[in-house]
């Protein structure tokens, strides 16, 4: 049975021959490297030989210290950058950036419905289509509120709904709850877990919060500081909903933290 959004939106048409990963909406990265030249002309290696994969409708959580190339990784998957080496197979992906980047002149509902308008619907049609999910995601009553009137958690919900309504099968979430206070972050983590249960997508969740990765991910990839490499991959085969004080969750968290610690040593 197709999910609600799939009923609402036609899946994106991908032209040309499709690879397996594209057809199945999984993601496959093979030995991807990416470097930049910074302002002073030095070459900065952001990612080195990164191989990752996510099966369709799986949540791949990527944890690593600041500056490990996590954002670069997402931009590569979304096609905003091209790798220097290696290759990437992914269905067309939508990015939820670290900053919510809601448009301050649009109401919350109009911000969420923006991808529908881009897809060619009128403002009115877009609103009508976005409204049911808007309410389901706990935003009921905030349709007319402008972003400046919303709390941080609410803004992230709107930004997430906007990403969801893009109709893409792959969602790239860049530290979606990084800027929230601890209590709101915990609420939002459970909220996201519930939403993904109803609206399953292939998700790449970048975070620096190990607990978040273990709570939400089907698989956790731990990355080293720059140049970013995958230093450990953990399969999380725990039932959902997961509890942050569950002893299996705590044990996996310890394991990921230990891997992170090992990556920090030169």
């Amino acid at each position, binding site marked *: 049975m197709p999910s609600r959004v799939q009923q609402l939106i036609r899946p994106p048409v991908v032209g040309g021959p499709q690879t397996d990963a594209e057809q199945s909406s999984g993601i496959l990265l093979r030995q991807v490297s990416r470097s930049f030249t910074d302002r002073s002309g030095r070459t900065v290696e952001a990612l080195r030989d990164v191989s990752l994969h996510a099966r369709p409708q799986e949540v791949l959580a990527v944890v690593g210290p600041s500056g490990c190339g996590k954002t670069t990784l997402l931009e590569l998957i979304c096609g905003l950058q091209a790798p220097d080496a290696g290759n990437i197979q992914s269905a067309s992906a939508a990015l939820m*950036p670290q900053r919510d980047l809601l448009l301050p002149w649009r109401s919350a509902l109009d911000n969420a419905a923006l991808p529908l308008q881009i*897809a060619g619907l009128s403002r009115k049609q877009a609103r009508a289509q976005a409204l049911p999910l808007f309410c389901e995601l706990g935003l009921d009553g905030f349709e007319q509120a402008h972003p400046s009137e919303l709390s941080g958690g609410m803004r992230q919900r709107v930004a997430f709904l906007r990403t969801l309504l893009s109709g893409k099968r792959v969602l790239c979430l860049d530290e979606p709850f990084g800027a929230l206070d601890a209590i709101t972050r915990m609420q939002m983590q459970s909220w996201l877990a519930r939403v993904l249960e109803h609206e399953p997508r292939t998700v790449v969740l970048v975070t620096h919060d190990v607990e978040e990765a273990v709570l939400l991910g089907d698989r956790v990839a731990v990355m080293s500081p720059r140049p970013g490499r995958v230093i450990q991959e953990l399969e999380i085969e725990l039932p959902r909903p997961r509890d942050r004080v569950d002893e299996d969750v705590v044990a996996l968290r310890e394991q990921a933290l230990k891997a992170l610690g090992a990556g920090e040593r030169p």
Partner: protein
Amino acid sequence: MRRRLAIMLPPLALLIALIGAWELYVDLGGVDPVLLPAPHSVASTAWSEAGLLWRNTLVTLKEVALGLALAVAAGFALAVAIHLWHPVRRSVYPLAIGSQALPFAVLAPVLAFWLGFGILPKLVVIGLICFFPVTVTTVDGLNAVDPDQVKLLRTLDASRWQAFRFGELPAALPAALSGARIALVVAWISAFIAETSSPTVGPYAGLGREITTDIGASVNPAGAAAGTAVLFVCSITFFYLLSLAEHRLAGWAQPQQGENR
């Protein structure tokens, strides 16, 4: 109501004090009334010449309204072109800057012989003077748009046009409106230049022409001061009317009421 009164009080008090000081200065013989007529004689002249003032005010208002509309539309379109196409930026922007150094008082009569003695050459002069602040502020507003915002729109499959329409255009609107406000303030003096330096047919040639006639041929300094006072009031009124429009169009960019800044 009480709050509105409290807002109006300081500017009104200042205006009354200034007019009172002016009246006293002239009455006590500080200056020859031919050079600076006293407020009471300005007021009585305005009353007796009300019909003439009104007709000329309508002429000037029409020039300013149409000229400003032209200037804002052209200035905005030029800014968009400059923003979207680099060759335009490099080639047209310097010319736009140079256009502000043109001797408009000399240009106006030339335009009149070229475009006729009606309103058109005056609109061209007002447009040429007033488009510039709109262009400059809009170009800066468009350049200040968050590049991450545009990037996000692109990942949502927005075309270049959609990224402009949904992202850059509304983001630059407050800056464009600031430019329009500057243009509005300059519009009155540019209408004055246009009226006084171009030949016109018809009995009413606008406030600018009335003021110069009063100063020169008819030796009516109080009439000139009355015309100036009308320009003064028009300028202030239209500025605040535009602020109201700004609140409607781009209220999101203004600080919220009751917000402590």
